[in-house]
């Protein structure tokens, strides 16, 4: 392998995009060529520096809100690919206020036909819809506090159960607040955690029967969902966080429960 090839292929190697043979060949060249080794070290450092979250621009909340509003209201295409988007039958007053609630309702109607009648699948759709709604509607929290002793009493009198509230800040998942939500036809507690830039919603309500801790991971259109049972609570964890990290978080919750 010559230096020109190595200078290109080292990037594939750093990114884990090469097959084993090419990977080893690049490595061999770098071990033998001090100039390429120095270039390689610089590129590795370059990659590491760019991983910084600070370089990532986050979409302003106002933009998200604007798009959420614009999409259901947008006119149908000429060809009539979308004849009458909800305008025909949804009362005007709730048209913008609860589009995602409609989404959740439709998930109930559509899910049994398209993805089978599983209760968990339906609940997964519901918690994802709730999670998205909480982020879109600027209604992430009713009580904003990083103190579990503020959040837990806040639920008293608002729910007929007391959800376990723990802060996992030292593990990188600080509690940021809580709110009331509505899942599976009942009021539930929603705890909000943060991990880096990612928001995690934890929905909790008492289980009907068995209390065995059954963890299940699902992916719903880019969101990851973990389901577990903790201290007699049905517990659903949802975020755009990657599965490993969300799984780690779920284990923290279970350990406390």
């Amino acid at each position, binding site marked *: 392998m010559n230096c020109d090839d190595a200078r290109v292929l080292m*990037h594939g190697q750093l990114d884990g995009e090469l097959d084993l043979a090419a990977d080893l060949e690049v490595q061999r060249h770098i071990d033998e060529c001090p100039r390429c080794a120095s270039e390689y070290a610089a590129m590795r450092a370059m*990659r590491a520096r760019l991983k910084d979250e600070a370089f990532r621009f986050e979409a302003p909340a106002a*933009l998200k809100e604007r*798009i959420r509003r614009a999409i*259901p209201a947008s006119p149908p295409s000429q060809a009539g690919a979308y*004849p009458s988007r909800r305008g025909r039958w949804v009362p005007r007053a709730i048209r913008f206020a609860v589009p*995602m609630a409609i989404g959740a309702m439709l998930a109930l109607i559509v899910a049994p036909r398209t993805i089978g009648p599983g209760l968990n699948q339906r609940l997964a759709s519901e918690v994802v819809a709730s999670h998205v709604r909480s982020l879109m509607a600027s209604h992430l929290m009713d009580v904003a506090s990083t103190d579990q002793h503020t959040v837990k009493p806040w639920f008293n009198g608002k729910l007929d159960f007391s959800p376990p509230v723990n802060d996992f800040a030292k593990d990188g998942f600080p509690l940021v607040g809580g709110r009331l939500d509505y899942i599976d036809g009942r009021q539930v507690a929603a705890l909000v955690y943060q991990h880096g830039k990612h928001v995690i919603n934890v929905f909790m309500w008492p289980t009907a029967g068995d209390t065995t801790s059954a963890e299940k991971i699902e992916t719903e259109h880019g969101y990851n969902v973990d389901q577990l049972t903790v201290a007699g609570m049905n517990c659903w964890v949802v975020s755009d966080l990657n599965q490993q990290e969300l799984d780690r978080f779920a284990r923290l919750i279970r350990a406390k429960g």
Partner: protein
Amino acid sequence: MGGRETRLPDESKAVDFDRTFIPHMDAAYNLARWLVRDDHDAQDVVQDAYLRAFRFAAGFRGGDPRAWILAIVRNTAFTWLKRNRGPDSPTEFDEKLHGGVGEESGLEADAVRKADGAMIRAALDELTDEFREVILMRDIEGLSYKEIADVAEVPIGTVMSRLARARGKLARLLQHQIAQERIPKER
């Protein structure tokens, strides 16, 4: 009654759109923001792209929704750039023109490590759009070569060579900047 039967699939598509593409709005904005380099303009681009994506959603045949929405954002951004900053931006990107890989100066990792955030941001701004976007998609957004190839509509091999040139250029800009700072300013 016939209306009811046709309505349901359309509504279900709307649900799908929300849950499939809305989660990637941060990635969409990030790409647009780095390409047009202005918050307000980037918001316009993302909104425009999402409305277009919504119209084309029926054409989404599974696959990676993030790559799909990013491809639309990218096209929208480039159209926007051509219209608003027209003459400045080269319409055709020449792989050979924009810096070879085996460039003159050697690189040292130390220079890269010493660069601060502002310096890196400024250097990224100096890159051509094609260099900036490939670094953005790979290093900041974490897309695979395959996904980048899909978004930018180039072969995977081009993704790798472009990334090599882009990172090399960026690192050299930083190294140059660091070296400049070592020279005491004349008074």
